[in-house]
């Protein structure tokens, strides 16, 4: 594990081969309130990267910066080597980044299938669309069983699976997930995280923002710990799990 300044120097020399997503010393906030201070992160192809940290550390804000929902006041965001900092959210998402927002937002008055159909609205090729649907059903069979159920009447865990499935329907290579385990029963946390691991096996690159630090570190290839909107620690999931300071501060032991 390295300190942040070492890591930054290392990033500059490493080059961008295999790097999908790069956040470069980004400052950002809401109006007058500054949330992020020179935050940097890197995601390589096929990696599952977790961003953890206490409430208000700016974890979700990092995702919003990547998606263009918030424009950084400093720094830049690169996707596949291209500077996307100034792009509109729908363009960024259309370029192949899926997004599962916080709070398992589904369309409550639509059926499971209709929700998924909405997720694939950019896909014009029907064969590709049904292919994506099969993958989603394969990943979360409960969605197949409940095809016709109204999304609003499903349990929180099922809605979260639907939200993830909907993001997969456009066939993105990279997915950003904001607190996928928030407010879920432990049983569903297992199912959702298992789904994420299987998505990783299929080669999907993922960035997962999580409050559930222990679980997030267990499944992550690498992770970043944010505190007060700054990079605090980073390393592989295992390194951070075994780090004394991280354990004391964030893992309650």
């Amino acid at each position, binding site marked *: 594990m390295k300190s942040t300044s070492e890591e930054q120097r290392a990033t500059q020399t490493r080059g961008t081969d295999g790097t999908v997503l790069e956040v470069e010393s980004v400052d950002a906030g809401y109006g007058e309130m500054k949330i992020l201070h020179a935050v940097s992160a890197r995601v390589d192809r096929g990696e599952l990267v977790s961003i953890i940290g206490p409430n208000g550390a700016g974890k979700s804000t990092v995702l919003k910066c990547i998606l263009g929902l918030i424009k950084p006041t400093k720094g830049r965001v690169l996707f596949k080597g291209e500077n996307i900092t100034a792009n509109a*959210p*729908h363009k960024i998402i259309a370029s192949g980044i899926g997004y599962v927002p916080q709070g398992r937002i589904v369309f409550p008055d639509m059926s499971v299938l209709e929700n998924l159909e909405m997720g694939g609205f950019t896909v014009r090729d029907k064969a590709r669309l049904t292919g994506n*649907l099969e993958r989603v059903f394969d990943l979360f069979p409960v969605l197949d069983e409940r095809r016709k159920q109204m999304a609003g009447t499903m349990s929180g865990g099922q809605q979260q699976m639907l939200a993830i499935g909907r993001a997969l329907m456009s066939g993105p290579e990279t997915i950003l997930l904001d607190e996928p385990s928030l407010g879920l029963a432990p049983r569903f946390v297992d199912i959702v995280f298992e789904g994420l691991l299987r998505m990783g096996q299929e080669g999907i690159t993922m960035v997962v923002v999580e409050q559930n630090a222990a679980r997030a570190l267990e499944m992550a290839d690498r992770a970043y710990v944010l505190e007060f909107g700054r990079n605090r620690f980073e390393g592989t999931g295992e390194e951070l799990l075994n780090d004394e300071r991280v354990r004391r501060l964030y893992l309650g032991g």
Partner: protein
Amino acid sequence: MTMRSKLRLGALPVIGVAAALAPLFLAGYRLVFFLLMFLHVGLAYSWNLVSGFTGYISFGHVAFFGIGAYVVGILSGIHHWNWLIAVPLAGALVLVISLPLGWLMLRLKGPYFAIGMLAVAQATALVASLWDGLTRGGLGIFVSSSYNVVGVYYGLLIVLAVVMGVTYWVDNSRFGLRLLSIREDESAAEAMGVDTTRDKILAFALSALFPGLIGGLYAWYIGYIDPRSVFSLFFSVNMILMTLLGGAGTFLGPLIGGIAFTFVVESLWVRFPEYHLMSTGLAVIVIVMFIPNGIIDVLKKRGWLTHRRRILTRLIRSVETTPQKKAEVPERV
């Protein structure tokens, strides 16, 4: 879409032809009754385009109606232009105004947008009152001395046919699907890559164009306009009322709501002129309490109407041909 609803929608062109021939058989109040019905239904369809499909409830659509009326009032009433030129110009001007206005107003959400649009309507009414060099202010404008019911009747019929066609297209297009996703949950729509700003503004502009045209035709029909009459809040309220009554965000809702509304209002107006405004308030309460999703929804729930969005059934149809995973039984003979 199923066969049954196809047959039902197939009746619409027949009704259209009947409506086109009606002036040969009807005259006087009977023709005016249908003229007013087209006006109401057309306004309901217009409002439905933005508020029904995106859920951005506008209390200010009378602004477009009033501007349209004033364009025709000024061009035809004061400068004696042919109304057949003035009415399309009214629509064009309202369309041009609506783009920057939508860009500005659609940043507001929920009740703020509703109140904001109310303020827009009040502001346009004030402009019409105060800019008397252009509008003759509170004096109003005598638009026409010729009482041209048949011409206005056909004008409104054409506008109504177009706005219904546009609504049908929206209801069955990707554009409509994106609007619907905005209504259901705007941040989820954004997360799926919908350009919510562009789509909202486009819906807003479409929804403004038709009240502009209808307002222009109304000015020519009614013959005299002043700020109080054509910027009356009742036009806004009635658009909302009719659409909610029929079913917001649906193709047939504004038609059913507008027809029902016209029958009720006109019969009350004739029999109890002093109470008919109160009845509007009463109707709002009854609708909100008993049929919050409109008549269309009641019909669907009873199985009398089965209309599904074609655009949303691509997957449904492809999946329905294959059995569900759980139901799969291995075939071994």
